[in-house]
């Protein structure tokens, strides 16, 4: 019984066949799920990046501002629109409570996206197909991205970052 001590020696009890069947299936399933993760790094095309560097808000802002000055093609609603060359390093800055600049990318081209925050933790959430990364101050997170569809994308902040959190929306345009 579950509420009184078991028999003196319970380790040698035989496990019945239903339980053995179940435990075998469960172990195999666990191994399959475990293998899927490294396997996807080899065969899959959607893996979280582990390329990151230490930085500071001032340093990151300087790099991002240089990037914006170099490739700026216009402005939308007061935010710089930037069209970087294919294959280049691109920057998106998170700060209370906006994302900048607006990025203009080419479908099928690969970029190295640098993400960092100038103040709090923020969450990079790309809409509409929900792709999410954490944006951590003092870390430059480099994600190699290849947009696969054209259209207007939005970037929502999905980590609580203070009382204006809900106002934090950015934009990426893919042509």
């Amino acid at each position: 019984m579950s509420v009184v001590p078991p028999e003196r020696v319970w380790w040698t009890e035989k496990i019945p066949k239903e339980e053995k069947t179940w435990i075998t299936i469960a172990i195999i399933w666990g191994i399959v799920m475990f293998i899927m993760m490294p396997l996807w790094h080899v065969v899959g095309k959607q893996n979280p990046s582990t390329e990151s560097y230490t930085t500071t808000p001032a340093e990151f802002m300087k790099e991002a501002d240089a990037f914006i000055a170099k490739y700026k093609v216009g402005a939308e609603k007061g935010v710089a629109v930037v069209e970087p060359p294919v294959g280049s390093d691109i920057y998106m800055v998170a700060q209370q409570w906006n994302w900048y600049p607006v990025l203009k990318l080419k479908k099928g081209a690969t970029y190295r996206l640098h993400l960092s925050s100038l103040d709090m933790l923020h969450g990079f959430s790309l809409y509409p197909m929900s792709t999410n990364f954490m944006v951590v101050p003092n870390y430059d997170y480099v994600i190699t991205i290849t947009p696969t569809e054209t259209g207007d994308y939005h970037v929502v902040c999905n980590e609580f970052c203070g009382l204006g959190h809900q106002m934090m929306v950015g934009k990426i345009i893919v042509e």
Partner: protein
Amino acid sequence: MSEEEKFEPRGTLALVFIFFTLFVLLYILNWIWLSGVWELS
């Protein structure tokens, strides 16, 4: 059916198999959904 078999948890085994099937289906479905996002590495 023998006297002993009557008391075996065969119903539970059936229930956990249904649960397991659902688990595997959702697992596969999630990988398919994942393939729809931008290429990332």
